C-alpha cells in the first residue's frame, strides 16, 4: 500500500471519530482513500472536505474539544495555514493528530519531497511557547503504526501530535501489516473518560466545561505556561524514541530522520564496504528529541554527520545534544532533491574523515 493510503486505513482501524482536511499534493490520497472507504457506514467515522486548511484545523479543534479522536493531514503550505489553529489546540490542551507530508518550500515551492519543516514542527510553528509531539516515520509500516501511537500520546498528554513525513514515504508503496479494528468510543465512554474537561454537554452532575486558550490574568497565564512546560519536560523524560543501526563499533555517526534515514541506512552499508566504521542514529520522536543517546554517542565517535533534506535544521539540535564536544557537520539537498547514498558517503569522507 501507499504511505498516504495507509494513514487513512490505520485511522479507520484505530477507532478514529473524524477526519477534516483540504486537498494538497502530495497527500491528497489520505482524504481520497477515506472518501472511497466511506467509514461512516462502517464505524461511524465522520469525513469532511473543508473549505480550507484554516477551517480544517478549527474543525479539529471543535471535535477534539468534545473529546473526539480526530485528525487532519496536509502538506507544508497547508500546515503553515494551520499554524494558528495548532497553537490554539496546544494552548487549550486538546489532543489530536496532524499529518504533514512535507514538500519543498518556501512559499508554494515544489511538490517534491523535503524535510524543511523540521523547525516549524519541532519548535512550535505558531505563536507562543508550545511543543507538538512529533513522530517521524521512515517506512510505510511506521506510517501505519504511528497513527495509533500518535493518538495515544496526544490523549495521554492532552496535546496535539504530528506525524512529520514527506512525499517519499507518502507516495512510496511497501508491504504493511495492518492493525485489527478497535471500536470507536461511544458518547457515554467519551463522557466517562474525558467528561472532566470535554464539552460533552453540561449535565446536572458536573460544572460546565470551557475549552479556551484565553487567560487575561498574566499570573494565571504564567501558571498555565509552567504547567505546559512541565508536560513537555515529562515527554522528554518518558517518550523519546530512536533507533541505532550499526553503532556498536562506529567511529563516525550519521544522524537522520524519516526518508533521509532510509538513504543513510544504504550509505552506512556502502561506507562499511569501503572500510569506514559508521553507524546511524535515527530519531523517531523529533520532539521529544533523543538528546541522551546522542550525548552518549558523542563520547564514543570521532564525528557526526547530520543528513537532512533541508538547509541544516536538525543539525542544531544534534550539536546541542553533543555539547559541541566533537565535530557535528551537516549534509543535505534542498528544494525537493533527494540525496543519493553515494553523495552521503562522499560528504562523510570530505567533511569528517578527510576534513
Amino acid at each position: 500500500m501507499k504511505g498516504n493510503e495507509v494513514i487513512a486505513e490505520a485511522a479507520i482501524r484505530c477507532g478514529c471519530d473524524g477526519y477534516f482536511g483540504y486537498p494538497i499534493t502530495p497527500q491528497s490520497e489520505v482524504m481520497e482513500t477515506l472518501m472511497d472507504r466511506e467509514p461512516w457506514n462502517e464505524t461511524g467515522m465522520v469525513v469532511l472536505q473543508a473549505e480550507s486548511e484554516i477551517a480544517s484545523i478549527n474543525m479539529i479543534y471543535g471535535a477534539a474539544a468534545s473529546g473526539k479522536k480526530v485528525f487532519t493531514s496536509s502538506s507544508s503550505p497547508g500546515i503553515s495555514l494551520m499554524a494558528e489553529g495548532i497553537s490554539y489546540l496546544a494552548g487549550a490542551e486538546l489532543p489530536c493528530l496532524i499529518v504533514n507530508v512535507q514538500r519543498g518550500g518556501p512559499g508554494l515551492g515544489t511538490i517534491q519531497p523535503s524535510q524543511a519543516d523540521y523547525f516549524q514542527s519541532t519548535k512550535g510553528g505558531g505563536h507562543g511557547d508550545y511543543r507538538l509531539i512529533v513522530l517521524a516515520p521512515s517506512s510505510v509500516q511506521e506510517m501505519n503504526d504511528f497513527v495509533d501511537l500518535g493518538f495515544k500520546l496526544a490523549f495521554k498528554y492532552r496535546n496535539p501530535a504530528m506525524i512529520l513525513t514527506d512525499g517519499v514515504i507518502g507516495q512510496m508503496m511497501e508491504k504493511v501489516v495492518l492493525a485489527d479494528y478497535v471500536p470507536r468510543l461511544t458518547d457515554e465512554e467519551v463522557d466517562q473518560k474525558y467528561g472532566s474537561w470535554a464539552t460533552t454537554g453540561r449535565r446536572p452532575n458536573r460544572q460546565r466545561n470551557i475549552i479556551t486558550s484565553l487567560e487575561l490574568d498574566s499570573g494565571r497565564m504564567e501558571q498555565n505556561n509552567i504547567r505546559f512546560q512541565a508536560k513537555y519536560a515529562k515527554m522528554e523524560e518518558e517518550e523519546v524514541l530512536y533507533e541505532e543501526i550499526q553503532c556498536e563499533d562506529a567511529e563516525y555517526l550519521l544522524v537522520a530522520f524519516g526518508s533521509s534515514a532510509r538513504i543513510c541506512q544504504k550509505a552506512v552499508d556502502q561506507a562499511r564496504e569501503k572500510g569506514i566504521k559508521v553507524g546511524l542514529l535515527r530519531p523517531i520522536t523529533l520532539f521529544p528529541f533523543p538528546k541522551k543517546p546522542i550525548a552518549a554517542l558523542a563520547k564514543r565517535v570521532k564525528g557526526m554527520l547530520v543528513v537532512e533534506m533541508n538547509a541544516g535544521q536538525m543539525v542544531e539540535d544534534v550539536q546541542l545534544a553533543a555539547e559541541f564536544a566533537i565535530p557535528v557537520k551537516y549534509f543535505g539537498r534542498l528544494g525537493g532533491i533527494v540525496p543519493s547514498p553515494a553523495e552521503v558517503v562522499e560528504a562523510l569522507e570530505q567533511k569528517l574523515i578527510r576534513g
Partner: protein
Amino acid sequence: MELKDIINPNNLVYEKPKLLTENTMHYCPGCSHGVTHRLLAEVIEDLNIQDKTIGVSPVGCAVFAYNYIDVDWVEAAHGRAPAIATAISRTNPDKVAFTYQGDGDLASIGAAEIMHACNRGENIVVIFVNNAIYGMTGGQMAPTTLLGQATATTPNGRNAELNGYPLRITELIAQLPGTSYVTRQSVQNPAAIRKCKKAITKAFQAALDKKGTSFVEVVSTCNMNWKMTPVKANEWMEANMFPFYKPGDLKDSTKDDPESYTPLKN
C-alpha cells in the same frame, strides 16, 4: 404593607434565567449583548437542552460569553466559530452547537467559514450580533459600518471609494440552500425582545430537527464606541441601521424541503 410582603415568591413575575451564571457581565451599560445573552439562556432553558447544547464563543466583545451562560463552551479563534461548530455537530449528531459572533468576527475575518458552514447546511444555530463597529478593540470600522459612519479608522466617516461598502451578509446567507431560517432581529424594546426570543427559539428548534443552518442577526448598539447614551444609541440604530439592515425574516423554510438540485448521474 411591609417590604417582606412585597418580596414574596407569589409576587414574582420575572426572574433571572437559571442558565445565567452569577458572574458580573463585563459588557458596557447599554450594550445589546446582555439582553441577547439572557434570551439565549431563556431559550436553552425553555427547550430543556442544557445537557446537549455546546456554545462556541468568538473573538470580540463576546469572547467571554462562556462566563455567563451555564452550558459547555468552546472559545474559538477569530472568525472560525462556524468551522468549530461544524465539527462538534458532525461528531456529536445528538447535540446542538451554536455560534455567537460579532460583525467583525463573522462578516470580515470569518466570512469564508460562515459561508461554507451555511452552504453545507450544518445543523447549527448562528447568533450574529451586528453593531456596525469593532467593539473590543476600540471602535474601528467593521464590514457592516454604514457609509458616512465615523469610527476610529474612518474618523471622517466611511467612504465607499476608500473603504468599500457596508456588507449585508445576512442577505447573502439567505441565498444559500443550506440555510433554513434566516432572520434579522433587534433587542431595543420589549416588543423587539419578545420577537427576538421567538426567533432564537425557532432557530434552535430547526437545528434540533436537522433542518439545516439557522441564522439570527441581532442588529445591536455599541453606545460606548458610537459615543452615545444608551437611549440615543437605540434611536440612532432605528433611524440609521434599520433602513439598511431591515428587520424581519429573510428566509423561513423550516417546514419546506430544501431547494432541489439535480445531481449528475455517474
